[in-house]
């Protein structure tokens, strides 16, 4: 069955929506998102340590989109713009959920899937050891690929929930949910 982006978006609008956006993930859009989220969290009764955690994880999620999201294929029912991504921050009972979605070429998706599987397979202790190893031994790069996902799992203490949908023969859509409890 063909991937239905609008249906996927609808499914992500559960709980109280704190922030959502869809479109080209530019530096300005990131600034706007972070400012808006921070202001919203400041108004709530969320404790400082959790507010910082939500902000930190959201920051990694949105910058992950900035560095890795591809331009969607013409077959996608979305705006065809560079670095297209969708982000939803919501609160559901006692936890916060950050949902992201983006299109990726299939050859890149394979690498991302392997990395996601690896990160999710690690114990809490291994996450810390591998995080330090990657931090120390990988060359600095604009996106510091790898550390971001490790950081999300480490900070939340939860596995990354993801699903990969087939868009067409060349592109897939990566859906990811990060929970902060």
């Amino acid at each position, binding site marked *: 069955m063909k991937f239905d982006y609008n249906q996927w978006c609808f499914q992500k609008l559960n709980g109280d929506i704190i922030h959502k956006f869809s479109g080209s993930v530019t530096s300005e859009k990131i600034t706007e998102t972070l400012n808006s989220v921070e202001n919203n969290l400041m108004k709530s009764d969320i404790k400082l340590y959790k507010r910082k955690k939500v902000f930190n994880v959201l920051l990694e999620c949105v910058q992950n989109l900035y560095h890795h999201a591809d331009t969607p294929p013409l077959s996608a029912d979305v705006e065809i713009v560079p670095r297209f991504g969708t982000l939803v921050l919501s609160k559901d009972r006692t936890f916060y959920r950050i949902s992201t979605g983006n299109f990726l070429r299939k050859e890149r998706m394979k690498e991302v899937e392997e990395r996601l599987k690896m990160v999710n397979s690690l114990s809490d202790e291994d996450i810390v050891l591998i995080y330090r190893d990657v931090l120390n031994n990988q060359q*600095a790069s604009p996106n510091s690929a790898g550390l971001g996902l490790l950081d999300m799992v480490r900070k939340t203490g939860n596995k990354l929930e993801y699903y990969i949908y087939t868009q067409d023969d060349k592109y897939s859509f990566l859906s990811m949910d990060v929970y902060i409890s």
Partner: protein
Amino acid sequence: METIIREGSTKTPYIRFDGEVGLIEVKGRSIPENSIEFYKPLIDWLERYSESPLDTTNVNIQLEYFNTSSSKCILDILKKLELLYKKGKKVQVNWFYEEDDEDMFEAGEDYQSIIKIPFTMIEIEE
């Protein structure tokens, strides 16, 4: 040697790299999309400073937020300072974290485990 002072912004930290008094300060938020672009001149400054450093260099790092790409750049700074320490110069790193901010505390522990220089964790009240 010239002093680098940069005011903080919504995405970049306050910076003071002062070769006259041997003081390095990074404070605020370090969350730019391209951290390398931001930190490259600071790393270059440290390389020049290392050619004729003061006997003592104090380093104060007090970050509210930093992204993973900045974490690599901060490590690069600390590695340059570790070289100074290995040459016999006194280097003291003070890592400030807010009370209850376990993530920032753990980040300090990460650097402490990698870099072998005097490293003090200092808790500050919210």
